[in-house]
């Protein structure tokens, strides 16, 4: 539990955000967690947003981290996979500054890139659960049995999340609705990046429209922007039965309440408070955390790492079943259990075998039964 007793008066921490601090998505989730830390510990946050070379020509994240240190930061949070190398470089160059690399795996003993860096902590929430719930919600709501997943770019993380959504959907489809797994269609279309870049990525608006046109009636978003929600809202306005599930940020439903089934979100606050407290009171220890939801109440913002808020468009019946699903997960239901095959037909987990964290974190392909590209080459 967070050590809210520690006082952070006079302690400054810095955050580097990959996108705008008010993006209503990934970056804002971190920004609000920073505010939460300020409130809980009395520490001071300084930040630089839009930390990417397109927005800040000629800068590197470690250089910007230096800026934060120059302004008094004793701890720096890097918030994007893009900054993995920079955070390593920075951590090594500044052994007396604490570093949190959110979504990284450098100091994971069982990870592939393990390195000893005493001043680094890796944080991540188990969004796999959030996505399972999202998948379940989608399956319970879908009339056509066709779920579209709007994917960003293809990597371990995005595959893992898409697959989790699929597992959740399949489970609720077969177990709760008693339908045939073969009747569930789960398709992933990747746009190529976390948001749309004209002429470079596919247009998520077109992807969403295409899903809807092809009879996919629930769109689960894996990207940072809300095109899925917007297009579902538009289709609904013209009388179609279409829903969407956005991503990342607790407030994401707002742009389309009438079609929003709910949103799986990150809640970085508690983990930040705990880790920053340990930096303040000297109990800091380098580690890798892949934090579970607070199962007693996954929406307890003082405790949970990831959550799922139900949206206005979720029917009450489905809502109850979603709650039941969450309860089952809390009680130890594990969907990452064999038999599970990979998309190319190879066996991923033999019957009854439980996936290790490594197997989930480094998922090499989409799972059997999912449509869409698995690898980018």
């Amino acid at each position, binding site marked *: 539990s967070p050590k809210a007793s520690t006082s952070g008066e006079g302690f400054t921490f810095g955050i580097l955000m990959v996108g705008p601090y008010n993006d*209503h998505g990934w970056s804002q989730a971190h920004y609000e967690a920073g505010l939460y830390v300020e409130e809980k510990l009395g520490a001071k946050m300084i930040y630089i947003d839009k930390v990417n070379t397109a927005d800040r020509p000629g800068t590197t994240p470690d250089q910007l981290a230096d800026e934060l240190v120059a302004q008094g930061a004793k701890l720096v949070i890097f918030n994007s996979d893009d900054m993995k190398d920079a955070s390593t470089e920075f951590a090594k160059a500044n052994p007396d500054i604490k570093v949190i690399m959110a979504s990284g795996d450098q100091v994971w003993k069982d990870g592939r890139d393990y390195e000893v860096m005493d001043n680094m902590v890796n944080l991540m929430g188990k969004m796999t659960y959030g996505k399972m719930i999202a998948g379940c919600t989608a399956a319970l709501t879908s009339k056509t049995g066709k779920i579209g997943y709007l994917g960003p770019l293809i990597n371990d993380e995005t595959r893992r999340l898409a697959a989790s959504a699929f597992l959740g959907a399949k489970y609720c489809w077969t177990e709760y609705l008693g339908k045939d797994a073969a009747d569930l269609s789960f*398709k992933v279309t990747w746009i190529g990046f976390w948001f749309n870049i004209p*002429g470079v990525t596919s247009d998520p608006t077109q992807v969403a429209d295409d899903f809807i046109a092809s009879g996919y009636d629930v769109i689960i978003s894996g990207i940072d922007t809300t095109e899925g929600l*917007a297009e579902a809202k538009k289709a609904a306005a013209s009388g179609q039965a279409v829903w969407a599930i956005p991503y990342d940020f607790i407030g994401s439903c707002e742009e389309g309440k009438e079609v929003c089934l709910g949103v799986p979100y990150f809640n970085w606050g508690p983990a930040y408070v705990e880790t920053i407290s340990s930096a303040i009171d000297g109990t800091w220890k380098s580690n890798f955390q892949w934090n579970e939801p607070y199962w007693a109440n996954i929406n307890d913002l003082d405790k949970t790492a990831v959550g799922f808020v139900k949206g206005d468009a979720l029917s009450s019946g489905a809502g109850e079943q979603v709650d039941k699903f969450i309860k089952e997960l809390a009680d130890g239901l594990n969907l990452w259990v064999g038999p599970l095959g990979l998309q190319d037909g190879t066996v991923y987990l033999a019957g009854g075998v439980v996936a290790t964290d490594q197997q989930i974190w480094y998922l090499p392909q989409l799972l059997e039964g999912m449509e869409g*590209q698995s690898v980018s080459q």
Partner: protein
Amino acid sequence: MTNEAILLGLAGVLTTAAPLIFAVVGETISERGGVINLSINGTVLLTAMGGFAVSVSTGSLLWGFVAGMVIGALVALIVAFGSVTLKQNQVAIGFVLALVCRDLAYFIGNPYMGLEGLRLPSLDIPLLGDIPIIGTLFFNHDLMTYLSYLIIPAAWVWIFRTRPGLVLQGIGEKPAAAFVRGSNVRRLRYLYTVLGGAIIGLSGPIYSLSVKAGWKGTISGLDGLGWIALAITIFGGWNPIRAALGVYLFAFLQWLGLVLQPSLPGVPSQVLQVAPFPLMIMTLLLVNIGNTEWVTRTLAVLPAPLRRFFNRLLRAMRASPPAALGTPFESE
């Protein structure tokens, strides 16, 4: 894919093309008058932001679109002032404005990030909308998409069929000749640049209030569209109909890129998105290559029938810009 899905997908292509239609038509009008408005990429962003901010603040879609037109017109006014009155290089002024307007949009638009805004409602046209296939394809969109159909022939008729359109062609072709025929070249260039700017200025709000509703700053996914529109204007050979076909082709290829994604597992999605650009370069090449010296030299050695054939072919493909495009006019 089912036929229905393909049909809806194609209908979607028409909607996503709408803002670009306005951008290329506006740019075509401006360039027909002899002024290149290179600021278009910045204008799209600034008007998208401005249109969104105004519509959020006023609660009115109409004011959002009006704001877009006003901003587009103002930016174009700077281009016109710089090039018509001050006789500075249009490319330079436009290029700088492209960058300034973009950054300005991000800076001023920051407080409006992610706010919930209005979205142009879909507006099915009663009778036409019920025609099978055609109805789905063309008549189940929003108002601006319908306007985008209308502005193409309207611009074409204006430029090529009306009396003022003849003058418009004239001031872009040979301003001195238009001047002796009684046209106030400077005023008309101002007028058409600003008008073109206002039309371009509609494209931003169509994005932020319809096609990609909302304002998300740097992640709005709008940066680059203006450059694309500029390229398509040239592709269109300064003819609104050809330019519009270019836009539809571009949007269609984008759609095709994602539809084909599952069947082309070896190709990263970014690569398919880029397909329109080599295509555009190829087209420009075909359109222009007839004017190059080495081609005429090469053709000269071919036997007569082959030479005639290629000559005719190259001439048929050729498109020339307004002769006075980019040059200032001085009456004395």
